[in-house]
């Protein structure tokens, strides 16, 4: 049943791609309609009106997104059924290799990730039709966009459904390739091309790493289905090789430091609703792959792995947010913050691995739950923020924070939604981001129960890094909101921005915002539902999550820690309203509008405000060693001998260290090697004859 629904959602996604292929301005259906209209001159008089080109193009624009929405809806329902129902449903399709058909399975883990996939998908499909309208008259046809969007979604859903390594890899690569085409969609910009190239290259290498990881298991198991792989017995060495390969492969997709550098290039390059899906959902698919491989397939876990994951995760978290703080392009900033959140998720996974392998399965379960919850939350608020950024982009065609400002007056509704996203991602109570980070902290605080002293000292340090990360995240998103939406507009077109007209472009974000609040306020039922998921993976369910009832969240036990977001919200509203009532209603003193006082300095202009670069300057100074900043100050001087300085222009650019230490050197190495090898093809035939001659001699000498 659930599997059927999931299948339907995959089909719907594929259908949407087919539909958009057919319905493009030079697509089949379009020609078909024209042909049909001029073929039957009299009948479609009334139909003819109904199908004017304008209406047709609107139809062509909306149909694929409608189908995507359907797909999302089915995905969520299927996921819910699988998650709540528990158990695993399997099927096989007559595709693939002759001795290995496609095996499908839908278990609670996949179900949960189906939910993670479905909700942003619905939002994106609400948001899409309005957003893509601006592409309609561009030089790129919408049908390409729709085609690959559908394939992209179908690929992600198939990854979740796959139950054998072969299908898994097919779906995985389908996802990568389709998203590559989406990144390269606006390919007239060289930067987009470069980003797309880098993206696909990394995806390819990562995929090979994953294949090899599967290969290790398959080598011992002799089969490629997940059942066969599960039942394999590995020596610790081989298990570790497989694990490291998998970590590299999935981590590359998820954007773990130092393999992350492609991510901030690629995600902003795509159209915004795609960026939302990529950052919000695709990274979670990578997380799913990692969980599936490490917790489900691998026979046994070792604490060293946990330490490795913990270290990498913490590094990604803190570096990601530090780099995010220094970005001026809004979408790049969001992409870097995805790196941070993935880092947080992997930190939780690392904790879970450590506890799991040191025999403390209940805490391992807690860590896993925290990771899963944060995946869901990140999917929600990151998609929300990307859609918001997309809306701004759509209305103002502005990427850079430096030119924004005061948008809260121009687009109030969007501003409100964006604020919710900001509060959630800044991990403030009572929103959803806080719940998952709180759970992670709770997990880390149980480290006292571990025997090994190294771990007991390592884990708190990691949690310290996590604390730093969340504080910096708050700073980062205060900057985003304050600079983009508050204050005075910093450029003319921003000052003339208007609220989005298309209702869907607000409906999508509001859906996500609603979920952000919902899961923030009532996390307990959700976490309870995850029990059916953790049972097969770790053999545990969290016993007393809801020991004090559904209103309270008590991960370990009521004595250790309790948190009731609902009451927190209630209290805040109550107190706030009380003050409001007492202070305002009673003394009805109407506030008066006036020029800001500003210590008596008058004449405020937009240029006197703090810019985004200025806001993050102290952090830049404090964390100097992390960054690779190049700053330039231009003086505009005049007067005799240019002594009088009339203007200063300050540029700064923060380069990603990963480029300098990892990417560029390897690129150079390849070209150098290629030049060496090029000498083989010197062009002289006698040299060539010499090659074959000596090859022959050497071989003869070798064999005889």
């Amino acid at each position, binding site marked *: 049943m659930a599997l059927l629904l999931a299948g339907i959602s995959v089909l719907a996604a594929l259908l949407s791609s087919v539909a958009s292929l057919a319905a493009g301005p030079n697509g089949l259906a379009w020609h078909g309609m024209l042909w049909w209209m001029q073929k039957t001159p009299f009948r479609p008089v009334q139909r003819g009106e109904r199908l004017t080109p304008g209406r047709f193009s609107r139809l062509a624009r909306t149909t694929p997104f409608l189908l995507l929405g359907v797909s999302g809806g089915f995905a969520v329902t299927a996921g819910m059924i699988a998650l709540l129902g528990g158990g695993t449903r399997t099927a096989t399709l007559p595709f693939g290799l002759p001795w290995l058909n496609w095996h499908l399975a839908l278990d609670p883990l996949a179900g949960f990730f189906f939910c993670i996939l479905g909700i942003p998908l619905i939002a994106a499909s609400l948001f899409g039709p309005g957003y893509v309208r601006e592409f309609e008259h561009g030089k790129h046809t919408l049908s390409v966009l729709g085609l690959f969007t559908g394939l992209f979604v179908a690929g992600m859903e198939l990854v979740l459904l796959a139950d054998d390594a072969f299908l898994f890899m097919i779906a995985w690569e389908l996802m990568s390739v389709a998203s590559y085409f989406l990144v390269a969609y606006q390919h007239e910009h060289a930067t987009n091309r470069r980003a797309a190239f880098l993206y696909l290259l990394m995806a390819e290498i990562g995929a090979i790493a994953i294949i090899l990881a599967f290969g290790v298991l398959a080598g011992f198991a002799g089969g490629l289905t997940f059942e066969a792989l599960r039942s394999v017995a590995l020596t610790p060495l081989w298990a570790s090789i497989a694990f490291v390969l998998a970590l590299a492969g999935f981590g590359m997709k998820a954007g773990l430091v130092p393999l992350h550098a492609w991510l901030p290039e690629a995600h902003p390059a795509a159209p915004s609703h795609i960026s939302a899906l990529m950052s919000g959902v695709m990274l979670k698919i990578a997380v799913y792959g990692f969980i599936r491989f490490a917790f489900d397939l691998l026979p046994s876990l070792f604490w060293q792995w946990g330490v490795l994951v913990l270290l990498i995760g913490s590094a990604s978290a803190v570096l990601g947010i530090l780099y995010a703080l220094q970005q001026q392009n809004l979408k790049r900033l969001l992409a870097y913050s995805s790196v941070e959140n993935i880092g947080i998720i992997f930190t939780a996974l690392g904790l879970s691995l450590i506890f799991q392998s040191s025999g403390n399965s209940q805490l391992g379960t807690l860590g896993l739950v925290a990771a899963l919850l944060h995946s869901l939350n990140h999917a929600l608020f990151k998609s929300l923020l990307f859609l918001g950024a997309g809306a701004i982009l759509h209305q103002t065609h502005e990427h850079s924070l430096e030119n924004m*400002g*005061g948008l*809260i007056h121009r687009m109030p509704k969007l501003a409100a939604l964006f604020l919710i996203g900001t*509060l959630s991602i800044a*991990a*403030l*109570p009572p929103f959803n981001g806080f719940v998952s980070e*709180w759970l992670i*902290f*709770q997990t880390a*605080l149980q*480290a*006292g129960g571990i025997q090994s*002293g190294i771990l007991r000292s390592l884990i*708190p*340090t990691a949690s310290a890094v996590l*604390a*730093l990360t*969340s*504080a*910096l995240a*708050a*700073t980062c998103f*205060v900057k985003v909101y*304050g600079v983009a939406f*508050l*204050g*005075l507009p910093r450029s003319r077109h921003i000052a003339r921005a208007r609220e989005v007209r298309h209702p869907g472009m607000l409906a999508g974000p509001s859906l996500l915002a609603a979920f952000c609040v919902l899961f923030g306020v009532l996390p307990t039922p959700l976490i309870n539902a995850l029990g059916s998921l953790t049972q097969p993976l770790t053999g545990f369910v969290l016993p007393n999550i809801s020991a004090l009832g559904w209103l309270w969240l008590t991960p370990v036990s*009521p*004595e250790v*820690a*309790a*948190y*009731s977001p609902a*009451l*927190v919200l209630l*209290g*805040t*509203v109550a*107190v*706030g309203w009380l*003050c409001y009532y007492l*202070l305002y209603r009673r003394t009805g*003193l*109407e*506030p*008066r509008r*006036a020029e*800001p*006082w*500003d*210590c008596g*300095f008058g004449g405020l202009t937009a240029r*006197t*405000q*703090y810019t985004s670069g200025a*806001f993050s300057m102290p*952090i830049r*100074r*404090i964390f100097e060693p992390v960054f690779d900043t190049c700053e330039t100050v231009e003086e505009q001087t005049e007067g005799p001998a240019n002594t009088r300085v009339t203007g200063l222009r300050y540029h700064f650019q923060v380069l990603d260290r990963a480029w300098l230490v990892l990417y560029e050197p390897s690129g150079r190495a390849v070209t150098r090697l290629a030049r060496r090898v090029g000498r083989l093809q010197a062009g002289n035939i006698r040299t060539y004859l010499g090659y074959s001659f000596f090859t022959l001699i050497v071989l003869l000498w070798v064999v005889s």
Partner: protein
Amino acid sequence: MAWLMAILQTLLFIGLAPLLSGWIKRVKCRLQNRKAPSLFQPYRDLRKLYRKQPIVPQPASWIFRAAPYIVFASTVLAAATVPLVAIHLPTARIADVIVLVGFFALGRMFLVLAGMDIGTAFGGMGSSREMTISSLAEPAMLMAVFTLAMSAHTTNLSQAVNFVLDSGLVLRPSFVFALGGLILVAIAETGRIPVDNPATHLELTMIHEAMILEYSGRWLALIEWASQIKLMLYGVLIANIFFPWGIAQTFSLNALALGLGMIALKLAVLAVMLALSEVLFAKMRIFRVQEYLSFAYLLSVLGMLSHIILEAAR
């Protein structure tokens, strides 16, 4: 009953906060050989502000108007979760110490947003500095708290206090470190000398004041009050976590009276110490604050590690 107690304690908290800052001012004046205002001066200030008509700067949006309420509310909620005179109150279950930090963060967030909302240079400056400082102070505070939580095996404040009470007088090195860290953080977070000076409007040095520069009337009153509560809150934290003796474990009348007396005493002593330090030290340059805070961070982490290494249960 318990809920009633909780609400009463919260109201008490709110009510006493201005008194504490009045007391601090008084002690300070005495130390500087100045004529001190009355203990109740803060209440008068609040009333005066409350009567005045507030002014909204031109570019401000609803965030500017909503911020004071949210700040005040979050601070009050924070106060509600901290045991003042008694433990085992139900409110302690709503939010543990991590959530407490979250409350501070929430309030700060809106204050900072309000500071940027008016689009002045000072607002942005103050917001930037505030976030910078807090992004260093918050982890330090969390670490200090974690040290406590790990030895008490709980993040629930009243449970922790209970644990310290039960274990009697134990000289834990980790607690010493944590105490040091927490004090440093408290000074930074409440904007006292040497990090910030609440009594100045000198443009280039102010942090907290720069953000609330444009506030007036009842909003300013709320914000001031909130910051007074915050100050007292830190005091109570330090007092009741590290020196919890005397706090009421039952709701009997004399126990509560004793608790009230004790906490008043502790706070008074702390206030004197604070005043002393404010008189002795001078304000730091903004970029020296990071060293100060990283020292606090270091202290807390040391506390954590010493708990792990020195106090490992064998």
